[in-house]
């Protein structure tokens, strides 16, 4: 979701760069506010680059690291920059099974981002629906739903995730379920807070007078006005989801070996670290770090730009 959105933003940015004074629209104001910070601009560019690398991994990677015919075990644990048996250079070295780390990281990035984005999307949908329903219905429904949210948020994410994994077992779908369960409450709380404020506005009253159905008022009238804080939360939570998935995979209770995310690559390299072969863990870790930090920086800037209290 965030990928498509940032793509659209990058396209729409061009007109605002033109020297000609254009009529100020909310989008243009948003863009010029966003790009006022060079760190945030850099982070967004980096994020787009990472997303492209992940999407195009099969085209860009020198080898398919999970095709055994292309991997040579004799090349295992080579330091960065070594020449391999197949005649090309391993710029980032190879791991314990002789896979080229550049390729392994590109494929790993793909899985990490996919799991993060999918869980984030599902959590957004569930959380927004719950939050909207709570705000709109009020009364007992609201207090029940919000009690559930409080309960969820009072326990640490990793504990809930581990509990679920212990119950459900390993697998991509199980990890996504765990991540969604951990995250939906943040969205629910955010959307409810915003929706409560929106409910008192005239346009909602007008929609009611027009006899619109409840779902229509909730999703077509109120929800679009709750989007700014929702987007901010979604960005920050996407970073959390990616980090949490990596942590679970590192602990050996996340993704299975057949779906090697960045966390699993780092975990694979752990056993070689004590013998000084640092790159097998270190480099995937740096990639993970850059990804998470870029998302966090974009989220921080979005929060500042979209926060009505900080409007200039």
């Amino acid at each position, binding site marked *: 979701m965030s990928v498509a959105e940032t793509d659209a933003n990058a396209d729409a940015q061009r007109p605002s760069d033109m020297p000609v004074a254009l009529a100020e629209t909310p989008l243009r104001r948003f863009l010029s506010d966003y790009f006022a910070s060079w760190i945030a601009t850099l982070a967004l560019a980096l994020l787009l680059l990472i997303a492209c690398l992940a999407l195009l991994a099969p085209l860009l990677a020198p080898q398919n690291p999970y095709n055994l015919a292309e991997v040579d075990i004799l090349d295992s644990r080579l330091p960065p920059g070594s020449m391999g048996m197949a005649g090309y250079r391993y710029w980032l070295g190879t791991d314990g099974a002789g896979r080229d780390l550049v390729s392994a990281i590109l494929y790993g990035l793909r899985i990490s981002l996919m799991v993060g984005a999918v869980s984030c999307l599902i959590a957004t949908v569930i959380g927004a629906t719950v939050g909207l329903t709570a705000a709109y219905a009020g009364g007992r429904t609201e207090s029940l739903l919000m009690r559930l949210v409080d309960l969820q948020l009072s*326990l640490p994410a*990793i504990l809930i995730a581990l509990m679920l994994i212990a119950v459900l077992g390993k697998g991509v779908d199980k990890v996504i379920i765990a991540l969604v369960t951990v995250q939906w409450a943040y969205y629910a709380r955010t959307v409810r807070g915003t929706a409560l404020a929106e409910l008192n506005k005239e346009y909602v009253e007008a929609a009611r007078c027009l006899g619109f159905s409840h779902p229509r008022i909730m999703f077509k009238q109120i929800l679009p006005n709750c989007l700014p804080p929702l987007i901010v939360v979604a960005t920050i939570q996407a970073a959390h989801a990616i980090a949490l998935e990596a942590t679970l995979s590192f602990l050996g209770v996340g993704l299975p070996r057949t779906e090697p995310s960045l966390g699993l690559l*780092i975990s694979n390299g752990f056993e070689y670290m004590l013998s000084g072969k640092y790159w097998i863990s*270190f480099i995937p870790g740096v990639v993970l770090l850059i990804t998470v930090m870029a998302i*966090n920086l974009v989220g921080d800037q979005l929060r500042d730009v979209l926060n009505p209290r900080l409007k200039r």
Partner: protein
Amino acid sequence: MTAYLLRRLMQTILVIVLMSVIVFFGVHVIGDPVWLLVNPQMDQRDIDAAVRALGLDRPIWEQYLHFVSGALRGDLGRSFIFGEPALGVILQRMPATLELAVAALVMAVVVGIPLGLYAGLKPDHPLSKAIMAGSIVGFSLPTFWVGLMLIMVFAVMLGWLPSTGRGPTATFLGVTSSMFTIEGLRHLLLPALNLALLKISLVIRLTRAGARESMQQDYIKFARAKGLTHSRIVRVHLLKNILIPVVTVLGLEFGNLIAFSVVTETIFAWPGMGKLLIGAIQTLDRPVIVAHLIVIVLLFVVINLVVDILYTVLDPRVRVVGQAR
């Protein structure tokens, strides 16, 4: 206050019951632990005997009732792997985990408050900006990766500190801990730092925000007008007011530290509860998983309860609101 306490207690009990149901049924519906435990060469009669011995042939609700009645007597079942009472196995490892969490908490306070105070008092100084940038990095760094890097730098490259395990323990004032031996401290330093890093960033941000806000307040202006020295204003007047939110948040974070020690313990082979849980998940040692989660949830809600009460005691303004509720 009493009514508030009672209500909080009821909520706490409800949470624990709910968790025990979810965890127990979840763990028992999925996966059949018999096949992990019996020897594949055993014949059907031996397997049946093993199933009966473990109580796995009963209907699931009966197993749950048996579990609850046991739990109330402090018996959470026997570990399939260790053959010992699950609660005993966990309690044995609890001191190591608590030690790690306490050490991390102390580090967070000792490092975080001075840095946060500096960044709050001199917001434009380059060093303050560096501190804040550092805290952003601290938030973004995945705990497990930092652990690996600490091992790489301090244990492998520099060889200063040991990378795995817990050092020898000594008993001081009735507390047995590895904090009281030099070798124990050497073992403790890296894992505690790893666990503390996120909390240090948190404390820096909280302290800085508190300092910046409080410096604008009238009581600070008044203290200045009285002619007090800057250091006295900071130490006595400012710090006391900043400490309330920091103490509260840190109290709540203590439970988080215990939960997150799972990661640190796995990396540093620290013989605590977290490492036990990961092992139990991988071997499907159901009694240990269930008992561990119950113990953690118990620990967690008790911490939340205590912090809530402490908060109302510490800050008179909250007490009024607490009574009104």
